[in-house]
């Protein structure tokens, strides 16, 4: 039997500024960090577009959700690290709670009432692509046909949007009610030296100073044709994936 894996849904949400609350209508929203608000907001955006599917995740605890972040809660980590190194800043218990890498998973579960297994991964520059690889690999053997992946991170630049989250739904069946129809035709973990065919990937990201993690950034025009993607870390490890438009 041939195994096929499809990208059934993709969307992104960016938090405009430090006080931007996203679209979360929950008493906890004002406590949440930008990365937590971005993660919950991208989920809410999906639920507003496809209420049946995303609301069903509340009841179906067998569909895992993978939340991935490259460096976690940078603002909170900064705050607690500053408190430890400089005694004039008292260590805030809230900042410590928020500094753990799965804080956004916790707030996602709390605000969206999700009881699924929310797996938090943190794999530096390769975070998103490892999560996609892991999700596809897990999906291939699990009884449930879907897996949800949320990739969230804080921006490093000093002004403008402060955090962004992207959400993906991978599934084993083509079509359905969701917004994308890309198939996953190939996915490999590579180590240098690469074969020349990988070097020519249309979407390439290489880890370098100043870049935290590559997003997927799937624009409409790219969704309309096939493309391949190569992400290489500074250690030489890389992930290559080939995405094809399904009719």
């Amino acid at each position: 039997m041939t195994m096929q894996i499809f990208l059934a849904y993709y969307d992104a949400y960016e938090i405009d500024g430090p006080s931007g609350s996203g679209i979360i209508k929950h008493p906890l929203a004002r406590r949440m960090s930008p990365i937590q608000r971005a993660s919950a907001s991208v989920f809410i955006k999906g639920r507003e577009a496809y209420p049946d599917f995303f609301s069903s995740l509340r009841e179906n605890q067998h569909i895992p959700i993978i939340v991935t972040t490259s460096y976690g809660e940078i603002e909170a980590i900064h705050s607690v690290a500053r408190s430890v190194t400089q005694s004039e800043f008292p260590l805030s218990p809230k900042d410590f709670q928020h500094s753990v890498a799965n804080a956004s998973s916790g707030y996602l579960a709390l605000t969206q009432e999700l009881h699924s297994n929310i797996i938090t991964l943190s794999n530096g520059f390769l975070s998103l692509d490892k999560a996609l690889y892991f999700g596809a690999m897990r999906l291939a053997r699990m009884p449930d046909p879907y897996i949800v992946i949320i990739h969230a991170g804080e921006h490093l630049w000093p002004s403008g949007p402060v955090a962004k989250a992207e959400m993906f739904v991978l599934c084993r069946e083509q079509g359905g009610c969701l917004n994308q129809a890309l198939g996953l035709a190939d996915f490999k973990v590579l180590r240098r030296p690469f074969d020349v065919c990988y070097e020519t990937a249309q979407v390439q990201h290489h880890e370098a100073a100043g870049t935290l993690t590559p997003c997927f950034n799937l624009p409409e025009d790219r969704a309309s044709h096939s493309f391949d993607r190569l992400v290489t870390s500074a250690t030489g490890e890389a992930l290559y994936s080939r995405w094809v438009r399904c009719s």
Partner: protein
Amino acid sequence: MSQIFGPTGGVPLFSVVSGMSCISALGMGVKEHRRALFNSPIHLKRDHRHCAYLDAPLGEVDFSSLQPGVDVTRCGTNELLKLMAVPVIDQIAQETRLFDRYRPEEIGIFIGTTTYGVDASLAAAAEAPELAAFKARVNRQMAYCGLIEKIQDAFPICGLSLCFANSCASSAIAIGEAHLALASGAFKAVLAGGFDALNPLTIMGFDALQVLNHELSSPLTLATDGINLGEGGGLVLLEHENKASSCHGRIIGYSAVNEAYHPVRPNPDGSYMKRVMHNVLTQAGLTPDDIDYINAHGTGTVANDTAELTALKDLFGQRNIYHSTKGWHGHTLGAAGGLEAIISLMALDAWGDCCGHFGFDFTPRSRRVALSNSFGFGGCNATLGFDRG
């Protein structure tokens, strides 16, 4: 479209734990842990490298036995984590001939941690008190997965590597997901578990949450309230049954759910703690009466222990089959699931001695079954199930 990840089908019923090793305040390796468990298990002390700012018992690893002459006060967490991980993998490799039997790309590694990168964050914050300047200093040394890179520098492991960050359930989830992933065909063997090292940020953070016990904790008794922190970790080598060179036991179930109750506190009714244990029983086709031993999460806080005791009593009644070993080695945070999974397997291996020593209920049968619970911030609850024939 081609097939990428092996044949479809159900998850296998079990994967074999063919190798295992651990490190904690109790010692280095399975033998030292076994000796400590049955002799003088409490290895927490006040005279530790963090005593200048914390007057409380901690479970500190004896790094000088790993690397004679090492000055741990000058080592950052990244270095300490590597110091712990390398001998653990060395032991497993010697026991199983792992690197002789598999090519590097056939070996995966799933690690849970919560403390890799702390040094780099502290250094950046010391240099840059303002957030913008701190952000400019964010670098790859702050990413948890750096621990895996250090391991890969020391050992030929080139299969899929993943770093799990589910707080105190990190390494339990790493092991559970490795168990599921083994079936995908992405690798033939996978090292899974985790490590965490004591450091000022974690200690002060838990102190700020007011959950540390400044005296010796007595988890699951409700006689004390608070955690004694520790450090260490453990890894298991998982293989398919027909490929395994030895067998310490099998993983027969894994479940993880989210409580969605509170960012750091457990739901006092213990319902989702009960659910993960129940799910594992269902996966393995077992009833509560089939369970011989449970290594509870048992942190020592009244909030955690009340909820977990409610779940345990709901499911297992008054049977005397569970305890928490955190009072002996401390709460090793993201590494707890890995370390305690190995202690669970050790308990099954020496079940007669365990019952005699700890007063557990003894039921005569040829197959022994254990559960290991790990619960973390963010509402994540995980249970692993093991058996040994």
